[in-house]
């Protein structure tokens, strides 16, 4: 394992400290743990709290700030944070308008956030949550864990964050978050794995000509292993799966071409070149495009594609001001 860190024990905390010190007038770390909150608590709005394992940088701490999150709770790498830490985050930012937690659909995240919300309710904090499950690589089914929450989560942060910033009520913010969740779909792939610092070796191994299709964001293998093909063919494969899931034809969409952490921007732009042409061909109208590292898996190389079907409300909220380390608008 070759990493620029000071030890596997300290990496999460030093990372959170490093983030906060990059914008000390805007961000603060709680003493209770690896929880990033806005330096100035914003009253009179629903507080938006997100979080999950570390290793997805800039998610989630990088999205704390005006127009997006009020708090982000970071667990150990790829491990959901514990209820006490999530509760500390909720408590620090809670207002009388309530708290909405944005949870990615993983057994661990859901359980830990549920327990934290129970703790918050015990303290008379009005708290609710939504579960993001945008990953079409995984079959949705009532009898299983269902789809994972991946890069689409960032768009939930953006749009629900804007709604909250406008002073909407908890049910209103929750409703728009759920609307985003209902309309956002993602699929990803990897050409090289990542290494959890504490594990010391990669989550899987790939030959020089192999890729994993249908990966999540935790260094886990994907749904199939295939031969490396061109950027265009690879992007087409992911897009076709997304386009088959809900109807995007004739709709306006936000496109996110998300790098997994070690993917050079060069490749993301090559991919975007195809994505834009293909969507046009398919009759999908692109309202806006985001290309970059938004929801990563440490130093995994690969990418995910996300489409969000917009309506007028989501469009306006997507365009609203955001001022966070990782997303400014």
């Amino acid at each position, binding site marked *: 394992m070759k990493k620029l860190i000071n030890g596997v024990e300290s990496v999460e905390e030093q990372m959170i400290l490093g983030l906060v010190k990059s914008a000390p007038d805007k961000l603060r770390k709680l003493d209770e743990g690896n929880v990033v909150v806005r330096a100035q608590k914003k009253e009179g709005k629903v507080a938006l709290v997100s979080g999950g394992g570390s290793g997805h940088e800039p998610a989630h701490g990088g999205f704390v700030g005006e127009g997006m999150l009020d708090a982000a709770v970071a667990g150990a790498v790829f491990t959901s944070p514990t209820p006490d830490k999530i509760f500390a985050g909720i408590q620090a930012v809670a207002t009388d308008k309530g708290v909405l937690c944005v949870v990615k659909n993983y057994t661990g995240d859901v359980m830990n956030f549920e327990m934290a919300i129970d703790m918050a309710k015990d303290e008379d904090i009005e708290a609710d949550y939504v579960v993001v499950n945008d990953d079409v690589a995984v079959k949705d089914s009532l009898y299983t864990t269902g789809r994972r929450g991946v890069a689409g989560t960032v768009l939930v942060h953006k749009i629900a964050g804007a709604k909250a910033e406008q002073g909407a009520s908890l049910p209103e913010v929750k409703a728009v978050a759920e609307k985003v969740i209902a309309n956002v779909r993602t699929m990803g792939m990897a050409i090289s794995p990542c290494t959890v610092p504490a594990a010391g070796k990669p*989550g*899987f191994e790939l030959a020089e000509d192999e890729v994993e299709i249908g990966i*999540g964001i935790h260094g886990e293998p994907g*749904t199939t292993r295939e031969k490396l093909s061109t950027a265009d063919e690879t992007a087409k494969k992911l897009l076709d799966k997304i386009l088959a899931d809900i109807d995007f034809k004739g709709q306006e969409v936000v496109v996110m071409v998300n790098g997994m952490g070690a993917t050079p921007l060069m490749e993301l732009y090559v991919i975007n070149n195809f994505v834009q042409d293909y969507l046009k061909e398919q009759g999908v109208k692109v309202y806006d495009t985001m290309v970059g590292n938004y929801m990563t898996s440490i130093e995994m190389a690969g990418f995910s594609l996300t489409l969000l079907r917009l309506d007028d409300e989501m469009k306006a909220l997507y365009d609203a001001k955001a001022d966070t380390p990782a997303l400014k608008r």
Partner: protein
Amino acid sequence: MLDTAKAAEIIRAIAARMEAEKDFLTQLDNEIGDGDHGINLARGFKSVLEKLPELEGGDIGGLLKGTGMQLVSNVGGASGPLYGTAFMKAGNALKGKTEATAAEFAVAMEAAIGGIKMRGKSEEGEKTMLDALCPAYKALSEAIDGGDELKDALTKAIEAAAKGVEYTKTIIATKGRASYLGERSIGHQDPGATSSLYMLQEMEKCL
């Protein structure tokens, strides 16, 4: 006979075992999960060890509940709330007791399993820790009903749990991260079922 001191000894033995099996459990989780199960449990039980001196003066219930709370606050992931809830529920079942009979142990184990099912919204046959724990409980309670001592009953429980672990290799996961792999999860043994087996083995060894 299980008393608080013995229970503390078991917790210590489990903690040592989790540390010893950290890499292997993590490797299993690498194959069908996110490669942290051993790391998570080792971290969690290390924090339990720090708390143990405070807990071992009281009753078994308090000891187990405290263990569960430490796990909930220090493991994270899926196994944190699940094992945490299991220990807390077992603790509730043994609340106020400084000694527990084999039958009382069985009741606590049943409560623990119930806690996992409730928290995880899961059942046997989904390729999780329940596939070790449920058959183990069944074997244990039958043995105790048939008059076995706790240690002998646990020996039978371990046999059943080991079979359960083998069984997880043959099925598709429908809960937890491994479920994302669909068919590809077949052929791999579930990390949580494996760590459950290790816990039962440590209990048996200590008795």
